[in-house]
């Protein structure tokens, strides 16, 4: 595994761990999601260097567009949660258990 590949993979996995083990705030989960998307963006951008070809240079932009849409949807849900539950604490999201 090249150093580049290792760095990108560890950045993604650290973001994933942050998303999986977020404890208090919904906002920190969304931030970790953004970190994961950023790691993937860097990976796709460096892919064309890997191949020494420019054919796939648009892929990072497409991915970034979708990631931005996703982030805005997440933020809208954060606002909706703050409106209905009063807070973005994860403990407040307990209405649906058995």
């Amino acid at each position, binding site marked *: 595994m090249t150093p580049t590949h290792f760095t990108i993979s560890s950045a993604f996995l650290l973001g994933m761990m942050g998303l999986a083990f977020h404890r208090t705030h919904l906002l920190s989960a969304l931030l970790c999601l953004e970190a994961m998307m950023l790691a993937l963006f860097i990976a796709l951008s460096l892919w064309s260097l890997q191949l020494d070809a420019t054919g796939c240079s648009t892929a990072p932009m497409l*991915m970034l567009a*979708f990631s931005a*849409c*996703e982030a805005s949807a997440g933020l809208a849900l954060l606002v*909706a*949660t703050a409106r*209905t539950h009063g807070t973005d604490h994860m403990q407040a999201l307990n209405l649906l258990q058995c």
Partner: protein
Amino acid sequence: MNPFILSILLLSLGLGTTLTFASSHWLLAWMGLEISTLAIIPLMSQHHHPRAVEATTKYFITQAAAAALILFASTTNAWITGQWDINFDLHFFPASMLTMALALKMGLAPVHFWLPEVLQGLDLTTGLILSTWQKLAPFILMCQIMPVNSSLITFLGVTSTLVGGWGGLNQTQLRKILAYSSIAHLGWMILVMQFNQQLALLALIIYIPMTFSTFMIFKTNSSTTVNTLAASWAKTPALTAITPMILLSLGGLPPLSGFMPKWMILQELTKQDIPLTASIAALSALLSLYFYLRVSYAMTLTISPNNLNATTPWRLQTTASTLPLAISATISAMLLPLAPATLALLSL
């Protein structure tokens, strides 16, 4: 909801799944999954009820994480093998990551924990879309990346059937029961997917009308708990008589059509020389059958003059069309004699 917005969202939902079906590049498949996730988010939270918003948030977080993991696995595969094409075999490590990510997308055990809660927070129509349409795109991707005879896939399948059976036993809320039913059925599909993708497709094709029928029945009765279902004999006596057939078809009893996929899957598993897995799956179907039987008992076998656990409802004429329910109920109860034709359609 505003009809223009509703049509945009539903068409985007269709676009997302179609894009994933039609793609041969992993990035395009990921985009299709993202589009369908983004399109269903407003549908889920349209009522702005706290439960709906909470369900939407939980759904969004899990689906976004799963989609990011799918893209990461395909990027890793591209770095290792130089290939973005879905048709080419994956390297082992990205393949396992992709399988787990798709399992998280679909709601297979052991990553199923979001599904009962999310389904509980939705109204019945959106829950129907979530249970049927949203399963198609990850299912197709899963079909295309299948290795042969992998222990991870068998583990996912057996765990899903067991969790779907045991988890549903303690539920009185109908949407949670349907969530665990979905987990169990997906477990059966995954079990056979590594050996014969057409049989998994058959299981999905039979599962969709059955789930559609149950959701429509619950919608007609406007009931979301087992107790309120007990009053349906007063509202729709014909439907009260038909519902046990649908529920037992979900449970996989012959001579109803739900038996067809289970029978074919057990036959295929036996042919592949794994009778132990087949026995465990068949026994776990008993667990699911128990709670289907409980719902049908509460609905059909507790009619007057027994006491009801629910308040008697107003007996209003329903203005919604019952044609879709009629068609799907017929399919989900009476398709077994046409089994050879159905199997031939899927070129088995």
